[in-house]
Each structure stands twice: as structure tokens, then as C-alpha cells.
């Protein structure tokens, strides 16, 4: 199994405040990697560095390298827009465009990328909604507003929207924290299925969720990577005392 992403000595700042310190880790292809750690430890910042979204924040800075299939996404000749197309993102709060239909929400990214052919759009919309396991629930009302769906359905719509532009990697930032347990369980099952075709990186506050859905887990603390390894090993037999304390609930 090869590595999809290699993070090398990555550091990140907001102004003069350093929030990530010299992170080095390799992310395997077609598996789920979870990032856990207490609030403010830098999880969101880390994944925003993986698709060059961190630099969109004013006064934000990044050093180090992030290799996608061996090529540094921060090198000068790389267009950040292309990177974001290859590495999609799903956010904490389901955020479908409220004025758009389910269909248009799913197709939004494609249209932005200049796909106009109706037949082609139809095909991709259906494929993406199916992949997000939402198709059967919405196929008869694709014209309805995306905002009319339940929270869990909205999140699956956002996943469909991310899938529509055919990314290779999907980043998810607490994708279930706004959902009830049943809707969250569905997203977790979906994540396992997505991993058959995509590389998934998920940030989660919920350690049990990381244990359930991920193959590898990274524990981040105060901007540093404390421990990274097979999820099974992290939760059965962590090497670091800090990790042990965090996952057994002794702090954080």
C-alpha cells in the first residue's frame, strides 16, 4: 500500500502565533486516517494545510512540504485551485447552498469547473448522490431545496458535492458533530465505503468515532504530533503516556 500524502516538517502560523510544529507523517492511500486531540491543538489547521486552504486566512503562514503522489503541493508551479480539486473537503456543519436545489448543490462544483453538458451533469449528479448513499432518498425530488433535507441528509449532500468533482482525497472536519447518533452512524458507514476508492482524512473530537472509522490515528497535542500509528495500536496499547491520558479521558 502506497502513501497518498507525505507531510514533511510542516509548521503553520496565524500571524506570529505558531500553531503547528514540525509535523511529519505519511498518509496511506485508500484508507481512513483520523486526527484526534484536544480543542485548539491544531487539527483543523493541519487538514487545511493539506489542500492549501490555510493560506486563505490573512497573515497565515506555512513552511515545510506536503507531497501529493510525491509532488509538493506548495511548490511554485502548482496552482492551489488544482490542489483543492484533487483534495476535497467536507465541513463540520452541513453547508448546502440554501437557495439551490439538491441537483444544483451536487453539481455546483462541476459547473464552477465549466461542465455544462446537461447529460453529463445528470450522470455525475446521480453517481455522486449514489456514492453518498443519498440517491434513494432524494431521487424523486432533486428540484427541492438542499436546505429542506435533514441534517444527516444535508451532510451526505455535501459529501456528494465533494465527490462530484472527483477528488482523490477527502478531508472531513468533524463531519458528524452537528448530527444525531443515527445520522452520524450513517456517515461513519459511508466513510468506510468511501475509503474503498478515496483516501480519507477525518478530524474528530470523538475518540470512539476515530476508533471506529479509521485505520490510522494521529494524536495531536499543542501543535505537535505526539503519536501516530495503526488505530488498533493507538487504542489498545498507546506508546505515549500523553496519548494514554487523552484517550482514557484523564485530560482534555
Amino acid at each position: 500500500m502506497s502513501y497518498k500524502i507525505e507531510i514533511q516538517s510542516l509548521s503553520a502560523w496565524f500571524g506570529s502565533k505558531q500553531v503547528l510544529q514540525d509535523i511529519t507523517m505519511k498518509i496511506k492511500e485508500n484508507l481512513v486516517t483520523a486526527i484526534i486531540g484536544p480543542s485548539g491543538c491544531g487539527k483543523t489547521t493541519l487538514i487545511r494545510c493539506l489542500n492549501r486552504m490555510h493560506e486563505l486566512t490573512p497573515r497565515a503562514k506555512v513552511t515545510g512540504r506536503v507531497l501529493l503522489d510525491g509532488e509538493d503541493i506548495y511548490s511554485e508551479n502548482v496552482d492551489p485551485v488544482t490542489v483543492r480539486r484533487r483534495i476535497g473537503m467536507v465541513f463540520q456543519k452541513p453547508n448546502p447552498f440554501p437557495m439551490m436545489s439538491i441537483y444544483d448543490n451536487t453539481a455546483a462544483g462541476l459547473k464552477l469547473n465549466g461542465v455544462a453538458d446537461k447529460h453529463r451533469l445528470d450522470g455525475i449528479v446521480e453517481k455522486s448522490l449514489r456514492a453518498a448513499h443519498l440517491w434513494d432518498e432524494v431521487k424523486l425530488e432533486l428540484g427541492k431545496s438542499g436546505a429542506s433535507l435533514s441534517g444527516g441528509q444535508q451532510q451526505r449532500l455535501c459529501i456528494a458535492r465533494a465527490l462530484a468533482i472527483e477528488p482523490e482525497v477527502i478531508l472531513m472536519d468533524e463531519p458528524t458533530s452537528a448530527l444525531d447518533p443515527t445520522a452520524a452512524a450513517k456517515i461513519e458507514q459511508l466513510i468506510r465505503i468511501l475509503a474503498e476508492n478515496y483516501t480519507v482524512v477525518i478530524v474528530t473530537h470523538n475518540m470512539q468515532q476515530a476508533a471506529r472509522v479509521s485505520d490510522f490515528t494521529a494524536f495531536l497535542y499543542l501543535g505537535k504530533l505526539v503519536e501516530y500509528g495503526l488505530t488498533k495500536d493507538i487504542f489498545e496499547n498507546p506508546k505515549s503516556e500523553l496519548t494514554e491520558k487523552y484517550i482514557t479521558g484523564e485530560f482534555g
Partner: protein
Amino acid sequence: MSRIIDTGLEELSVMLCRMGELTYETVSLSIKGCLNGTSVYSQVHEMSDALISMSDQAEDKTFELIARFQPVASDLRTIKSYMKIAYDFARYSRYALDISYINEQLGGLKECEEWITEYIEKMSEKVLNMVRTSIDALRSHSAQLAKTIAKTEEEVDKMYFEYLDKLIKKAPATSKCTISSVLVVRYLERIADHATYICESVIYLATGEKTTLR
């Protein structure tokens, strides 16, 4: 979409069924060797080593499922039962090894009178049936099938004590035979016990009922 834990439970179940089949082969080979006086010790030893490492793997897997999926209700019962069953299988193979060791070390039942080998053969058939029942009940999670083992368990127990009685009344010609046959009968009785424990675990995982079939 199936639940995430299902993949792990399925893997574990496949692992255990494979163990079950191998234990059956191991037990039946050791008994055959002892009855025929052929040396199967090294073969049984290999199989038994393989089973012990499979049992370790199964235990590891149950641990992983507990650590990662917070199993509850029937999932939790299944995992607990699987862990015990993996151990019971390992015990089968251990007794099988002991039986083939008797053959190796003491010459087995070669010097025994015919009524003795016939008696042991009959008892071992019953025990192998019990092993088979335990594996089938596990594979199908069938409490109904598991419960049927109680009757054979009682018969095997009875045969065990009856055999000791018989020896007291009429000692075999050689002490080699006395010792070998008593040990074989004893190990067979222990294997039957573990088959019964497995069936009790199957009933527990399928129904939540804690029963004893002994």
C-alpha cells in the same frame, strides 16, 4: 449499508470456524493414532501449534473489536463468547497433543485387550460427534443445536466413570495399558467438557441465556 462492526465480527467468525475445523482434524487424528498405534505426535504437534497461534489471533481480534467499536448487547455477548470459544478450541488441541503423546511415550493402547480398545473407540466416536456439534452450533449460532449436546455429554461422563470401575474390577494385563487407557479416557472426557462449554457459549450469544448443559 452494513454496520462498521459487522466486518470485524464476520472476520472473527470465519477465523473461529476455521479453527473449529482444524481442531476436529487434530482431535480425530490423535485418537486414530492412539487406537492404531501409529505415530502422529509430530503432526499433531504442528497442528496444535498452529491452533494456539490462531487462538492468539482470535483473542487479539476480540480485543480490537472491544477497543474500537464499543460493542453492546448481542455484539458484546458474541465477542465475549468468541473469546471463550477460541480458548476452548485451543484446549481441544492441547488434549489432542496429550493423547498423541501417550502413544509416543507409553506405546498407547497397543498392549490393551480388545474390549478396551473397543470401549475407547466407542467413547471417542461420541466425543468426536460432540466436537462436530459444537462447531456446527457455532457456525449457525444455533441454540437449538447447542442444547442437543447435553445428552451425549452425560453419556460420555458415564462412560468415563464406568471405565474406571471396570478397570478396578478387572485390571488389564499390562500397566502400560492401564496408564495409557486411563489417560486417554480422561482426556476424551475433558474434550467433551470443552465441547459442552462451547455449546453453552453459543446459547449465551444467541439468546443471552446463561445455561449449564452439564
